[in-house]
């Protein structure tokens, strides 16, 4: 099938071909509201007309700041249909972070979800000379703003409707203008979250998104009957492809939850067929299940434990359609009836045909748990510069340690230093106003450096070890892959975050953040009394538990020749949670190593001394921007001799 030139073309196609099919749902005032493709097309048209009335032109940039709400998705279409470029911005960034992106992109308009976002933009408007209008979706609290420059999306649509009534020719004109869009035109600009340095604006073309979306739909046989729930940040490329690009090209329905807090209930009501979540979500769901089961009555717990063991035995084979003895099949079927079915229903995953996880490594136990229940959870590997898809696991070829085979039309190559390179139709146009960065990331013949170190295994599947630049060496020249070690630690439910140190040092040491939900439940069951996060984190029994986890990780590491030298010798449990508001994590919850190195210099030095405790005082920023101080004496613990597996074997 030949693809159409632009995403707005797909909107027009869907409005004809799937006119009466539900394209979008949104839970509002407790009720799911629906819009068909034809209705959405009408809404987008009046919206686009209104934007033109306000003076938005071809090539202008428009910031979109907010959560997953229908009008914000329509904003994408409306803006793209007049050849302007939407720039979604992470809604939880504070005004100072936001202003960099808005200024760098040179936005003309800003579309905000609510007063909170409008206020952020207003507070920095003097740094944004190009900004002429602010639009908003939710009218709450917006009564006393200047209506000349700050107006509701409704008002803009009414402006558009009146313009259409005055001059019916405009509707035709709108379609003609869409026809002038071509596949090579910039379609959207997505800012990378900036793990290192300033965020960069990744420019993607219509072709990038359309071809990648169609390929992804083909790969997983996704069609017009799918249902998804949109709950990931709009500014993240994944949401733009899963909830926008793939939905437009396949014609499937996207559901917007009532609020970020109601997602699990909303997901249960919708029961999506295609589902994406970062490992974090699967982890926290599993933690919630485990906690709930620990509080359940004894017979229930026994039944659960029994059938989860059965699932571990046969689940993967059942999912892959492998031959199994009749008895095993029956046993699994009873489990489905009693445990897996109700559990999947509870998770809102009863109808999931394809579920993906990406962004970070997922714990093998967690990954296998979901698969054993009969949920087709797979891994993929991608990045913004590739319009997501680089590799993905095909059905039936699943391994917890790999990220799959190259996606359709994608070529992969491993550089001499181990870095992964790819070339595909999804490769971005370049970084906005940063030719230097573009040139250093993409070669002249179209290969893109991922920045990740990895290798292709004997089955042709890609394995990622770590960020290429993070892979370091200890003083004895053994390999030190920090993220690889941290991920192994984070696979334990009681460890939320970990930071490993070791490059240019004598041994590996680590910071650990406990997971409050899991550890507090554990503390309750073990009669451990504590008054605060800080006190719980510093509790000797918590240290004992973490120490046992680290010993287990060390045994794992020692068993792998490539990383055997990187066993953890000393660790401490941090007195506060690492937080994006304090700049310790990125907005996508990745550790900012350089920042942590500077901020916790004293603690790191203590890890490499023979001290048992270290005093630390940290400034923290509350959600309202106020500052406070947390002080603590953090205990440092050394581990016993690392088991030498090679000697034993």
């Amino acid at each position: 099938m030949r693809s159409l030139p632009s995403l707005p073309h797909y909107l027009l196609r869907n409005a004809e071909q799937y006119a009466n099919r539900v394209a979008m749902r949104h839970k509002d005032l407790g009720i799911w509201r629906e819009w068909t493709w034809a209705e959405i097309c009408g809404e987008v048209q009046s919206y686009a007309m209104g934007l033109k009335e306000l003076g938005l032109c071809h090539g202008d940039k428009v910031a979109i700041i907010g959560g997953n709400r229908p009008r914000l998705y329509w904003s994408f279409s409306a803006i793209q249909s007049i050849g302007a470029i939407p720039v979604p911005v992470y809604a939880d960034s504070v005004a100072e972070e936001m202003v960099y992106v808005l200024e760098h992109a040179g936005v003309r308009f800003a579309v905000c979800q609510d007063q909170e976002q409008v206020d952020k933009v207003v507070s920095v408007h003097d740094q944004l000379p190009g900004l002429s209008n602010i639009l908003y979706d939710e009218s709450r609290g917006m009564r006393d703003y200047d209506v000349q420059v700050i107006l509701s999306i409704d008002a803009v649509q009414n402006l558009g409707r009146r313009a259409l009534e005055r001059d019916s020719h405009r509707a035709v004109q709108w379609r003609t203008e869409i026809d002038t869009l071509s596949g090579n035109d910039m379609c959207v600009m997505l800012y990378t979250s900036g793990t290192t340095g300033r965020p960069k604006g990744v420019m993607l073309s219509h072709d990038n998104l359309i071809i990648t979306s169609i390929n992804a739909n083909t790969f997983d046989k996704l069609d017009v009957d799918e249902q998804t729930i949109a709950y990931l940040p709009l500014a993240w490329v994944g949401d733009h492809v899963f909830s926008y690009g793939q939905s437009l090209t396949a014609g499937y329905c996207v559901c917007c939850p009532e609020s970020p807090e109601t997602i699990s209930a909303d997901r249960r009501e919708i029961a999506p067929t295609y589902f994406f979540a970062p490992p974090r979500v699967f982890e926290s769901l599993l933690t919630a299940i485990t906690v709930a089961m620990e509080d359940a009555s004894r017979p229930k717990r026994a039944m659960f434990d029994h059938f989860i063991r059965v699932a571990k035995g046969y689940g993967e084979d059942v999912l892959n359609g492998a031959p199994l003895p009749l008895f095993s099949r029956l046993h699994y079927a009873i489990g489905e009836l009693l445990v897996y079915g109700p559990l999947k229903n509870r998770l809102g995953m009863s109808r999931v045909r394809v579920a993906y996880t990406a962004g970070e490594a997922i714990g093998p136990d967690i990954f296998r748990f979901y698969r054993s229940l009969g949920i087709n959870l797979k891994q993929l590997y991608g990045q913004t510069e590739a319009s997501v898809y680089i590799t993905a696991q095909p059905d039936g070829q699943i391994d917890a340690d790999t990220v799959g085979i190259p996606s359709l039309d994608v070529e992969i190559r491993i550089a001499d230093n181990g870095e992964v390179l790819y070339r595909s139709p999804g490769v971005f146009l370049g970084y906005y106003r940063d030719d230097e960065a573009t040139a250093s990331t993409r070669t002249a013949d179209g290969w893109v450096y991922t920045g990740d170190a990895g290798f292709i295994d004997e089955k042709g599947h890609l394995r990622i070890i770590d960020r290429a630049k993070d892979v370091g060496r200890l003083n004895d020249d053994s390999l030190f892959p920090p993220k690889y070690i941290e991920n192994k630690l984070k696979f334990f439910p009681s460890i939320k975050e970990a930071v490993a140190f070791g490059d240019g040092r004598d041994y590996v040491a680590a910071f650990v953040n406990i997971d409050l939900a899991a550890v507090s439940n554990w503390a309750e069951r073990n009669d451990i009394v504590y008054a605060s996060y800080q006190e719980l984190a510093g509790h000797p029994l918590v240290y004992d538990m973490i120490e046992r986890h680290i010993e287990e990780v060390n045994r794992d590491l020692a068993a792998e020749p490539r990383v055997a030298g990187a066993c953890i010798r000393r660790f401490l449990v941090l007195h506060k949670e690492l937080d994006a508001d304090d700049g310790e994590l990125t907005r996508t919850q990745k550790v900012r190593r350089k920042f942590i190195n500077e901020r916790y210099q004293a603690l790191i030095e203590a890890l490499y001394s023979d001290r048992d405790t270290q005093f630390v005082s940290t400034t923290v920023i509350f959600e309202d921007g106020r500052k406070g101080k947390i002080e603590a004496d953090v205990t440092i613990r050394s581990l016993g001799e690392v088991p030498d597996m090679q000697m034993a074997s």
Partner: protein
Amino acid sequence: MNHARRWSDQLSEELGSGASAELLSVDNVSLSFGGVKAIADISFDILKGEVRAIIGPNGAGKTSMLNVINGFYHPQEGIITFRGKQRRRMKPYQAAASGIARTFQNVALFKGMSTLDNIMSGRSLKMHCGFLWQVVHIGPARSEEIRHRRRVEEIIDFLEIAHIRKQPVGKLPYGLQKRVELGRAMAMEPELLLLDEPMAGMNLEEKEDMSRFIIDLNSEFGTTIALIEHDMGVVMDLADRVVVLDYGRKIADGTPAEVQANQDVIDAYLGVAH
């Protein structure tokens, strides 16, 4: 863009224009329990559309004052005028029917019922269908419930408690229970809302949320609010006018700034030899 104005600017302009009328006035009210004089000869008024704070040290008679206003206590002396009507004795449900709603210092919700049902219960005075109609749930009873449910859902949306809609309130954290209680009071669509320490026991973030709800409630729905609060920062930010009580007497009445500068108030809070 430069003209983006905050609600407070406009509000103060409106108040300055003298457009506001008296909603409630308390004239020479005294209340005693046996030999204890809880309230002694107090007079003040509440204007339509304002946020009026009642402050004072512990035992000053603040909660007694609220109880007098909503008809729970009957003062031995004095007159209360609400919406131009004088009254001496009034039962709490009559006060509720006439447009006064309140929340309590200690959360007083139906603990076993869900958030939704608790707020729905605030609509009961507005329901017209009888018990039997509601049991069979057809015709007018049904359409009435749908209408009320919609209003309740708007309140849930306003207070951002959709995620706890179906949870029993007894299991909710304290800050959320306070919010549900505010929701139930809002469901009555009162003209005067009495809040008894709406932020007691809350952390900073919860207080900020609650302040925002009170501000929006006041300026978006036009509800007049009388609140008792101990957090002076909150009072100074929220209130248009403040009345200060001490040992059952009124010692000051005026704008937050005026009250803050009043020597009697400073003495009452810091303590002087009586």
